[in-house]
């Protein structure tokens, strides 16, 4: 099929788009200039990682996961604990602990986080394990739609409450902070923000590449099929509960990785960042960008956050209303989100150009096209 036709499975088109995006990320810090902006964009790249994972679960798998803050937070806390320990000599307590608690030596829960690699592994694997257990529990019982959304939402609330309630272990409401040394680098040294940006960029590219592989694989098709008709999938000999659980685990792992990268970028890890409200916003990013396309998820996370920062720096009080409006308008007028709108516009343009050239290319509409003939 033509390279002009969107929606066709052309691996080269996807590869070129991916490389172009990678190149853009590489060039971006140079264009931004100010270290503050670079740090800001690094943060958004972490959000984009969460959005891509969420899109796999929600856009492709139909699971409205309203508690991704839990997994994002677990990843952030895992790395935040490691960073807290990096600030003090080996074996001693993180600074908040000597203030709030009477521990004389490092609690067992904290010990694994002395190692960077253990922390990174926990950041990705723990969310996946939790999502796996939660998924089996919910999907094996054939609990669907709203119940899953509410349940995941509740897990994010509980997570925040547990963090706040265990002051001695988690620094409670204040969270973990004071990461002056980040993986051996001084936070204030020139180039540190750029370096963090590059880590986030690599993280996002890895997440995107994995997500692309997943949605193009047979499993990816199965995930979409399960979204569209769970019963039919069952009668093809697959267990939809397993299919969905795996999709949910992938989303959780990506959110965990995003959290691990976000911890040093934020410079602080506290319960409020991972509560139910941020979890809902993550869904909004994907909805605005366009669920069901991975680029849409990336776009949504970047665009919504860019608008947020731009608006709230000039008119802080208006952002909440504008955000609500944005969400409603997109849902009402662009069900495919920004990516969907761009795609139809592109299809329209391509068909106009093809018409002008006089070629007889049909099948320009991306989604369902009426059948001209029956075979």
């Amino acid at each position, binding site marked *: 099929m033509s390279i002009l036709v969107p929606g066709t499975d052309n691996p080269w088109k996807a590869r070129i788009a991916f490389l172009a995006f990678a190149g853009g990320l590489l060039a971006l810090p140079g264009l931004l200039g100010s270290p503050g902006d670079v740090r800001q964009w690094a943060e958004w790249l972490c959000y984009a990682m969460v959005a891509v994972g969420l899109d796999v679960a929600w856009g492709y798998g139909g699971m409205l996961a309203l508690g991704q803050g839990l997994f994002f937070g677990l990843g952030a806390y895992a790395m935040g604990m490691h960073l807290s320990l990096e600030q003090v000599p080996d074996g001693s307590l993180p600074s908040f602990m000597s203030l709030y608690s009477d521990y004389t030596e490092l609690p067992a829960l904290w010990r694994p986080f002395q190692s960077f690699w253990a922390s990174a592994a926990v950041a990705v694997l723990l969310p996946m394990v939790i999502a796996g257990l939660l998924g089996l529990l919910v999907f094996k019982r054939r609990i669907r739609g709203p119940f899953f959304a509410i349940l995941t939402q509740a897990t994010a609330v509980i997570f925040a409450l547990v963090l706040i309630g265990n002051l001695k272990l988690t620094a409670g409401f204040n969270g973990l902070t004071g990461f002056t040394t980040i993986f051996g680098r001084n936070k204030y040294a020139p180039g540190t923000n750029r370096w963090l940006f590059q880590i986030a960029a690599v993280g996002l590219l890895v997440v995107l590449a994995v997500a692309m592989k997943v949605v193009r694989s*047979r499993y990816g098709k199965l995930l979409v*099929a399960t979204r569209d008709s769970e019963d039919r999938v069952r009668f093809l000999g697959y267990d939809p509960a397993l299919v969905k659980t795996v999709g949910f685990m992938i989303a959780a792992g990506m959110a965990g990785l995003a959290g691990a990268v976000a911890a040093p970028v934020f410079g602080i890890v506290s319960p409020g960042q991972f509560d139910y409200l941020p979890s809902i916003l993550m869904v909004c990013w994907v909805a605005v960008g366009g669920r069901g396309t991975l680029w849409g998820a990336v776009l949504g996370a970047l665009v919504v956050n860019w608008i947020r920062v731009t608006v709230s720096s000039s008119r802080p009080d208006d952002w909440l209303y504008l955000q609500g409006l944005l969400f409603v308008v997109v849902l009402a007028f662009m069900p495919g989100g920004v990516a969907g709108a761009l795609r139809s516009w592109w299809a329209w343009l391509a068909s106009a150009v093809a018409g002008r050239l006089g070629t007889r290319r049909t099948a320009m509409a991306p989604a369902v096209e009426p*059948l001209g003939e029956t075979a």
Partner: protein
Amino acid sequence: MKPVLEVCGVSVDFDGFRALDGVDLSVARGELRFLIGPNGAGKTTLVDCVTGLTRPTAGEVRFEGRSIDRLSEHQRVRTGIGRSFQTPTVFDSLTVVENLDLAESFRRSPLTMFLRRRRVTDGVATTLERVGLSAVADRPAGALSHGQKQWLEIGMLLVQGPKLLLLDEPVAGMSPQERLDTGALLHELAGGDQTLVVIEHDMAFLRRFARKVTVLHEGKVVSEGTVDEVQADPIVREVYLGRSRDARSGAVPSPVAEPVLEAVTGSIGETG
């Protein structure tokens, strides 16, 4: 010959309503069995019991001599029981090839599921030919006509190579030519190792393609035999006549109604 499918005294209650009432059914290997009966007779419910969508209130379903009552739906598919639905359900957002490939892939190991489909497998290609969808192989299934969707659904069943196929009104809504093609396909399949149970309303289709028929009425098996035997069975005539009388709100047959009555008896009695 040893039966592939045995339904032993199966009953189903839906909130006090008895949809199936002690149904016994035995289907031998390689058989092509037709299941008929008026609307609401319980035909779909019986198929649901075999495939696990509905759990019987009483009785047992055996497949190849083993009870399958404890197996979940997808496990039953894996033991070799495939079904199609009365309203065709294919995956609209996937292409025809992807639909078939997904159906075929259910035996793949979980790890190879994470690889991309790089070509059309032989099984899928053969099935595309067989159900006549090669020309639309790369279209989204949502863009197919109703008849094509039914063929795709049958194709998804065939590509899995089940030992027992249960088809719920496979030719409803098909054109006359499509019906003939489907009938021929059913015979071809039953000639091999596969066993088929087909629910069908259409008398013309039945006369042309049926060998052995089981008649269901109000949740009970009321007759079983060859097409001729069943057609001659007074109970079967009564079942269909009784219904046509009900349809006219139980009124005493009026002169106007006579032709309708004749039409119904004719369509059952006449041999093909």
